[in-house]
């Protein structure tokens, strides 16, 4: 018994040491990002976080430890930050969440003197609706929703528009988003409606469209879409362009995944921000600046397959060569991104509309 007690005491002491006696002269940076959203050294890739630690120590002659945590949705992240119980220095929310957090005073204005690499961000990604004054955010990635289909199943004559997802010929092979905003989005773009409308009649039209689609839908999915498309279990689904390439990487032999953009579709931007609970703002800005510099930015774009607004990356020869044909899909010629984005992107709906939308959505799934 004595031995057990001693052992327990030793364990507790060890715990205290592991958590408590971090050296005081080491700075700590808490980063909160989406899962699988940074090059992390796997399969021989660039280990962004460790390389930053090394680079910082070399440049500033001071040790820094990056605590890197991940979240699975904007709402998860928002709940953590707004609970006031945690302190992160850098977060990566999506556009509509940035607008909401800025409005609620949860973001700090950035000091761009510490982020000189901001100049590499293409002008068309500045002044977007969620941050019109460019105060709070530095864009990290952007993406466009498109339709993914299996060319071994789908006739070339049927592609090109949202109609493919409502095509009776492929009943039972269609995947639809399993979240209200994205699912209604597909129907509203198809019908030519404004996705941010506050006109309930428009939402009702989209609702009818989704109800009509329901018998043809194989499953309502989020990340399950990867396995279902890769294995050929389903043949048609809408998702983000970057994720399409992740699927192509893992597709089965008898599957030939292809991709196209319908005429109207959703565009999004994820950007790096500093929340008001940050404890080391300057260090956070240095980290954001580092993320924009060539080596880490190229590595992250290659790792995530998402398009980046950073001109250092999309003009990098190695990157262009590595991506090959993917460049055309990832960086479609939109004319002006800002123009398409401000017209089509999802914005925050007011609470009343959100409630209405969610009631309709529940009915779609129950019917």
């Amino acid at each position: 018994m004595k031995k057990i007690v001693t052992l327990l005491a030793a364990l507790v002491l060890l715990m205290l040491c592991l958590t408590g006696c971090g050296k005081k002269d080491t700075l700590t940076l808490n980063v909160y990002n989406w899962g699988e959203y940074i090059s992390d050294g796997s399969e021989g890739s660039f280990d962004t976080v460790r390389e930053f630690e090394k680079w910082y120590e070399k440049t500033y002659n001071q040790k820094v430890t990056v605590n890197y945590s991940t979240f699975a949705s904007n709402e998860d992240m928002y709940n953590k930050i707004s609970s006031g119980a945690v302190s992160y220095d850098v977060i990566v929310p999506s556009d509509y969440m940035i607008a909401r957090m800025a409005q609620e005073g949860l973001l700090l204005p950035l000091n761009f003197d510490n982020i000189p690499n901001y100049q590499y961000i293409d002008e068309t990604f500045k002044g977007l609706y969620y941050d019109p004054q460019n105060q709070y955010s530095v864009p990290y990635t952007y993406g466009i929703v498109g339709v993914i289909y299996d060319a071994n199943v789908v006739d070339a004559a049927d592609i090109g528009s949202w109609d493919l997802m409502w095509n009776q010929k492929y009943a039972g092979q269609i995947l639809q988003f399993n979240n209200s905003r994205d699912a209604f989005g597909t129907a509203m773009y198809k019908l030519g409606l404004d996705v941010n409308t506050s006109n309930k009649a428009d939402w009702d039209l989209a609702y009818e469209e989704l109800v009509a689609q329901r018998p043809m839908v194989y499953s309502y999915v989020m990340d399950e879409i990867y396995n279902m498309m890769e294995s050929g279990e389903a043949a048609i689904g809408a998702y983000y362009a970057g994720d399409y390439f992740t699927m192509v990487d893992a597709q089965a032999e008898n599957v030939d995944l292809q991709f196209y953009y319908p005429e109207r579709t959703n565009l999004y931007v994820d950007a790096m921000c500093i929340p008001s609970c940050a404890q080391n703002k300057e260090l956070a800005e240095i980290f954001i600046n580092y993320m924009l510099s060539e080596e880490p930015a190229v590595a992250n774009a290659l790792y995530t397959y998402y398009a980046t607004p950073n001109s250092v990356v999309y003009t990098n020869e190695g990157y262009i060569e590595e991506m090959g044909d993917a460049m055309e899909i990832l960086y479609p010629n939109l004319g002006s991104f800002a123009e398409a984005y401000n017209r089509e992107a999802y914005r925050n709906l007011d609470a009343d509309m959100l409630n209405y939308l969610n009631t309709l959505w529940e009915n779609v799934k129950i019917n």
Partner: protein
Amino acid sequence: MKLSAKIYSAIIFGFLFAPILVLIVFSFNEAKSLSVFSGVSLKWYQELFRDKNTLEAVKNTLVLAASATAISTVMGTMAAVGINKLRSKWYRAAMNTVTDIPMSNPDIITGISLMLMFVFVGRLFGASTSLNFFTMLIAHITFCTPYVILQVLPKLQQMDKSLHEAAMDLGCTPMRAFLKVEIPEIMPGIITGAIMAFTLSLDDFVISYFTSGNGFETLPIRIYGMTKKTVTPKMYALATIIFLVTLSLLLISNFVDNEDQARLRQARKEKKGKKD
């Protein structure tokens, strides 16, 4: 009848173990897919051991589970001893109910209420961040302790009460009688309680999620974070390793148990032989 019983257990075992089997098979897959098996390789095991963030999460999970188990086992055993000594039936029933609450309470309520309390207390003391390793530890101890009590209490009730008195009669101090006589008697209950506490702490997601602070990520939280894109096969490799370690621990403990019982039987036989 016999055949149908066999079929029944085959179905039950199938449902229990087929998913784990699939996971193990695909952890050796060469491709990054859960549906297409393109060749045997140890690639994902290599990747796993190169992924510092995941290994850190594993370490965090184990450190948390070990400390929560140690503390809740000691606390739970002490509580069980106390409850067992209560004379008033009413008081004992009340204590049992109170300790059952964290067990029967939905995780989500335990999680949110603990988080609110930590934030409230943290604000009271003017801390800018109130959630950290220790809040998570307290949360885990909270839901582990009742299970230890649940395992230890029946053992105490089964124990012959005169054992303690006999030990004192033979010159033990009350403390010594407790440590040398009672503890060995209830040891199986304590060990089962500790194993349950460890398992519960290891795979808890909901409560950990609400009480975790910045920079301290446990494995379930990390895997949840991956679901935006896709869970990489590295995680299959990790799950396979955890499964095999658990399996071998169980086999060893069963083996040791059997040995012990055999030795006990042998000793009894010899004793009998001497008497005759």
